């Protein structure tokens, strides 16, 4: 029998602290596999956010920085400018990237910073206990939207990928989901391209990953996947929004 699936060298031996069924784990794995497959683990420097994935620095088997909340793209910029030959990536949640860190991600894209961002959109603030995120759906309840997100007060959820895709320095923008094995494989391909974009010096690359937070959504992991499919995926369409190779 041949091994067809084994844990990647891109991850350390540490057990994830995530809740049962939390898709952060899947996204960690595919990102780590990409780093391993591209042979860049020894050159990779990751930036962890503040959010449930704050401990990502313990899980990725490469050099890691833990950034202030929302500032991972700025931290990554500092690293990449200092070490332009290294492979620099940020891993960020939707509170981190789309809310407090909106300016930093817009400007990393604007400068065409040669870094890669894995953007985990789970439509909620996981770590702090389920507060509303810019990506929380209209009507979705959150601890700071106890009556459900009210469009007239909070607007409609922010489509980060669409927004960033208007910026020329954002060479690669794609939205994926990790709801099924097939989509997980697609997500991994997108992440690989996002790193190749960096390796080829094309500019900023970001992959938005539609993700679940069973705990704060108040659902079983399995129900959370269905909720993702039925509610998030229609609002946040999957697909590539920018691609440096098509243009050529």
């Amino acid at each position, binding site marked *: 029998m041949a091994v067809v699936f084994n844990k990647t060298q891109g991850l350390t031996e540490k057990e994830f602290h995530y809740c049962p069924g939390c898709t952060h784990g899947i996204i960690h794995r595919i990102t780590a596999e990409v780093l391993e497959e591209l042979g860049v683990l020894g050159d990779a420097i990751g930036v962890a956010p503040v959010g449930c994935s704050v401990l990502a620095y313990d899980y990725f088997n490469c050099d890691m*920085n833990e950034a202030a909340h929302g500032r991972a793209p700025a931290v990554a910029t500092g690293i*990449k400018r200092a070490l332009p030959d290294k492979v620099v990536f940020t891993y960020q949640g939707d509170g981190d990237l789309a809310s407090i860190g909106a*300016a930093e991600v817009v400007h990393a894209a604007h*400068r065409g910073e040669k870094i890669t961002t894995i953007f985990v959109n789970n439509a909620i603030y996981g770590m702090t206990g389920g507060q509303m995120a810019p990506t929380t759906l209209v009507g979705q309840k959150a601890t700071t939207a106890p009556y459900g997100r009210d469009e007239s007060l909070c607007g409609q959820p922010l489509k980060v990928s669409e927004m960033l895709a208007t910026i020329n320095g954002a060479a690669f923008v794609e939205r994926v989901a990790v709801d099924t094995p097939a989509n997980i494989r697609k997500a991994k391909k997108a992440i690989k391209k996002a790193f190749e974009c960096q390796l080829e010096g094309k500019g900023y690359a970001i992959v938005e990953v539609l993700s679940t937070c069973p705990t704060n959504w108040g659902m079983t992991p399995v129900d959370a996947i269905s909720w993702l499919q039925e509610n998030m995926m229609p609002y946040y369409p999957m697909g590539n929004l920018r691609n440096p190779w098509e243009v050529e």
Partner: protein
Amino acid sequence: MAKVLMKGNEAVGAAAIKAGCKYFFGYPITPQNEVPEYMSKELPKIGGSFVQAESEVAAINMVYGAAGAGVRVMTSSSSPGIALKQEGISYIAGAELPCVIVNMMRGGPGLGSIQSSQSDYFQATRGGGNGDYRTLVYAPANVQELVDYTMKAFDMADYYRNPVLVLGDGMIGQMMEPIEFKETEKMDLPEKDWATTGTKGARKPNIVNSLRLQAPELEALNQKIEAKYMEMEEKEVIYESYKLEDAEIVFVAYGTVSRITKNAIDLLEQEGIKAGLIRPITLWPFPNKAFAEIPATAKALMSVEMSQGGQMIDDVKIANEGRLPIGFYGRSGGMVPAPQAIVEAAKELLGGVK
């Protein structure tokens, strides 16, 4: 090396480059714009990188990234911009990263004015960020010192793995004076084996981080960095005294105000009043020990600051330990104390205690 005439702000940049700094992240703000402008011109020439960040918040976090990557890195700003960097500075101290931060102070609070001020003393010496951390703070009084202490700041930052602040003001940033780039002794500095430069598969991953989820671990980190602060208090205090012998009144002043105060001391001397000066060059650690040198002739201390009501005066009170009465003279909002006004204030204080 020959002397050159340089503006303070440009001299900061030149000194940093001289000290091996090839990375600068900043955001424009008067009265320090010549620092980023100089760096934007010079760094590309030496293969370094200048980034005009989208904000001061981004700039300090870029500094965090570059410092974590093991390079010498600097940022500069002025008062409100430095206020925005407080979270980032706290992170840098917590993650034990070396960097140099320049503040050319202007009048506050809020948007205030763009004129010289010293009203960020508290922010600099106590830290406006969260947590128990300190930054070494140099307060140069002329452009030559600005150069010397900027260069020294890089060594100290690397040695202690801690941010170091160079605290100037609009005046020192804007003025030109002759300077010399002295060849300084190379300090013996530890290797940056903690930096995140890529493992190359040859070592365990390095992690740059200020999070310690478990309180005992965070306390251990705090104890570790406190030990550094105690070492700094022991070894890094720098100050100057001027005409301290048999002074009746001892001024305490730093930075550009100390120069004006020296003029006032000379004026007082002409009037037959003996006055001296303690000039802290490191604001933190504060030169408490300098106060032991105060002669028995002294009848009073006076803190002279460009601040409304005084900020350094707190440290003067602590250092004084209740021995002498303490007076204050200050101007604020960009107003600069005149030597003659200091003279008057000193005479009034002496009159009161005589």
